[in-house]
């Protein structure tokens, strides 16, 4: 019996040692700050303020989380800045620091990238502030718009990034129920609202990147099995997919856009970027949906600039085979913005900020 206990203890010690070694090594691969959820802030969650964020799983990047819980090197100092809100595409941790489209836009603005636009320079925002959260898509952004404008009242321009234009009736209806705002949930204050247990648990998770990765792998496996089961069920069932009523979609979307327009009097931009597919013949094909045309029209009718990056992406591909998504450690055409994708977005947004109307 004693021998078995000694063996078990030895194996447990070996496992513990291995965990320590592998965990230390994981800091070179992935650093994930604590994730703090909130219900009365500009976004549904923020990172643990004043920490570091790094990844080498998709692309490679290392970033600083500012005091507000967003991925920026600085926070805005002067009013009239450009606020860019979006999902992980905007967060852009997959590219090197300084190569995200918000960073490139900052560079363009600070260099005064002008020629004939010189006389409009004074109308340009001085700074671009990145307010993005993983999984934060248009309906959620719209729902949190009131809180966004309260948390960042000095923004002169707001850009909403979206990769989709098709949303369910439920999503659009929910978007109209605006979230409240509570400044106690700002990045500077939120830690004081957390219990000591939650803070401790968050810090432990930050110190254990190995655990975070293993949990994520397990979730991926679970999702994969769920997808496979769902695919099999869909193949078995003869359910016909219910088609959306285009009239309802248009009405609901218009309500949301009107609400956004009423909430914010400054320049409002929807930055749209489609999925793309690399076709067998070598061409790049953007996804095209009927909803996109409706979305663009309703934006124009409500005084919102609809910046569609589709043509810019196609032009960039035509010029030098730049693909807007994908990395050397994943595959091209899928995933988050590549350096080329960020560059295209920055140039499109810069044109809009300079010209003012998207044309």
């Amino acid at each position, binding site marked *: 019996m004693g021998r078995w206990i000694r063996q078990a203890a030895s194996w447990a010690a*070996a496992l513990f040692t291995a965990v320590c070694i592998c965990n230390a090594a994981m800091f070179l691969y992935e650093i994930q700050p604590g994730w703090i959820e909130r219900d009365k802030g500009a976004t549904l969650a923020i990172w643990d303020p004043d920490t570091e964020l790094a990844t080498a799983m998709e692309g490679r990047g290392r970033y600083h989380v500012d005091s507000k819980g967003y991925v920026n090197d600085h926070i805005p100092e002067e009013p009239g800045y450009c606020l860019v809100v979006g999902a992980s595409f905007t967060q852009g941790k997959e590219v090197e620091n300084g190569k995200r489209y918000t960073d490139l836009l900052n560079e363009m603005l600070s260099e005064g990238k002008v020629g004939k636009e010189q006389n409009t320079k004074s109308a340009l925002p001085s700074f671009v502030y990145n307010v993005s959260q993983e999984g934060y898509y248009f309906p959620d952004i719209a729902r949190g718009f009131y809180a966004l404008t309260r948390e960042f009242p000095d923004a002169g321009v707001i850009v909403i990034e979206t990769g989709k234009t098709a949303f369910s009736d439920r999503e659009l209806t929910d978007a109209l129920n605006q979230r409240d705002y509570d400044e106690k949930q700002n990045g500077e204050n939120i830690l004081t609202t957390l219990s000591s247990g939650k803070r401790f648990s968050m810090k432990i998770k930050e110190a254990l990147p190995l655990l975070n990765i*293993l949990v994520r792998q397990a979730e991926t496996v679970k999702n994969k099995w769920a997808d496979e089961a769902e695919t099999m069920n869909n193949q078995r069932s003869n359910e016909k997919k219910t088609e959306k009523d285009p009239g309802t979609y248009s009405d609901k979307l218009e309500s949301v856009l009107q609400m956004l327009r009423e909430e914010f009097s400054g320049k409002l931009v929807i930055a749209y970027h489609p999925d793309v597919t690399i076709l067998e013949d070598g061409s790049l094909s953007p996804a095209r949906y009927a909803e996109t045309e409706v979305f663009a029209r309703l934006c124009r009718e409500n005084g919102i600039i609809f910046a569609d990056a589709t043509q810019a992406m196609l032009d960039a591909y035509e010029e030098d085979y730049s693909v807007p998504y994908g990395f050397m450690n994943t595959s091209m055409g899928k995933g988050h913005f590549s350096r080329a994708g960020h560059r295209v977005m920055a140039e499109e947004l810069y044109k809009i900020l300079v010209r003012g109307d998207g044309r």
Partner: protein
Amino acid sequence: MSFLSIRFGIFFLILLLIMKVTRGAKVHQWVLLAASYVFYAAGDWRFLALLAGVSLAMWQCGLRIARAAEKEKGGKVWLVLGVSVDLLVLGVFKYAGFFADTFSAVFRMPRPALRIFLPLGLSFYIFQAISYLADVYMGKMKAESSLRKVLLYIGFFPQIVSGPIVKAHDFFPQLERDHELTWENLSWGGQRLLTGLFKKVVVADRLGVCVDAVYAAPAAYSGLSILTAVFAYALQIYYDFAGYSDMATGIARILGFDLGRNFNLPYLAASPSEFWRRWHISLSSWFRDYVYIPLGGNRKGKARTYLNLFLTMLLSGLWHGASWAFAAWGALHGAASVLHKAFGGKKEREEAGSPVWKKVRYVFSVILNFCVVSILWIPFRTNDFGKTLLILRRIFTWTPGIYYVYVYALIFGAGLLVTELAAVRYNRGNDIWRPLDLSRFSSRVILCCFILLTAVFAYIGDSAFIYAQF
């Protein structure tokens, strides 16, 4: 049932438990036979009767060969009959569609609507069946009177799906032992299984990301990107198949069986012939023993040797797949082997040279052979002449396109290079894998690190083994 599924994990644990509580070679044979048929049924129950039927036929033919040999009548009739049954089954299920398509294409007739499913593991277990008959006929082993043992040999679950193909005279003696679970087998087999798992889910599956993307649309990618993908596929197919073989070998070893080594660092080969002595060793040795040597081998003059070599490789290509692309692949390998035999060996004998020159020549030969093999993997992967030509054209004309040099191809390529250099330095160019001595604490830490890193870096995507389709 994939080795990578929870179902298999539960199945295997239950099997180990039953093996642990039972005793005796005969009992263990029954347990393993039942487990093998449960495993096969879980994969594809529709063809369970076919597997049993082939095994029954081989058992009977084997007994009649033995009886005829006792009466000094040779038994060739029963050998021919048995092998014909095997080839008929293989021909109908694997090649009928191919023949029908070829016939339709040649005579410009509409393709028949008939679609025949390929039974799981058919190519592998039919070859094992033929091995049994041939070994009995050649006197390498006695005919087996026990149907149980023949059923178990042909249907043994660790290797029925994708090999290794174990020759009958190597396997049957192992059945006579009591397969009690031992710590030594558990340690060796478990570590081999983990090594195979790493090769498959960390290396091969991750390389597949690049290969699938580029091979789906080669017209989009630059010559350099395509070259990287070609290199990545050479690594992917090796790690995928070697990984599966390691897992099969590891599982079998846990149960007390030795299935032999199926890969021996094939990209360290300095010639096409050497490549086939290192790659899928069980298949190439099968073709050597049961096709090349019966055809006459190298005993009937140079011309006949070259023909035998070429035919053997052609058949090997067709074994891999029922299409002209695979036939061409086999034929090209045959041509490369013939060319090397005709011109390469002679030069090696004539040019003694200095040690430095020999090393340079050796390195050059290894690199050249690797390049030839990698290029020949292209039609193997595409199964399409048009796409193969497109890929080759874009590589050799260095056409511009999407720049995509997959990082993991470089990392895993460097890893393989280090392994090969170590093999050359410490084991005369042979595989250096050895199980860790788990009585030592440091070995336990290394094993735990290995398991954790496998879990971290496993690519959770399509995990179907490449060779399972054969």
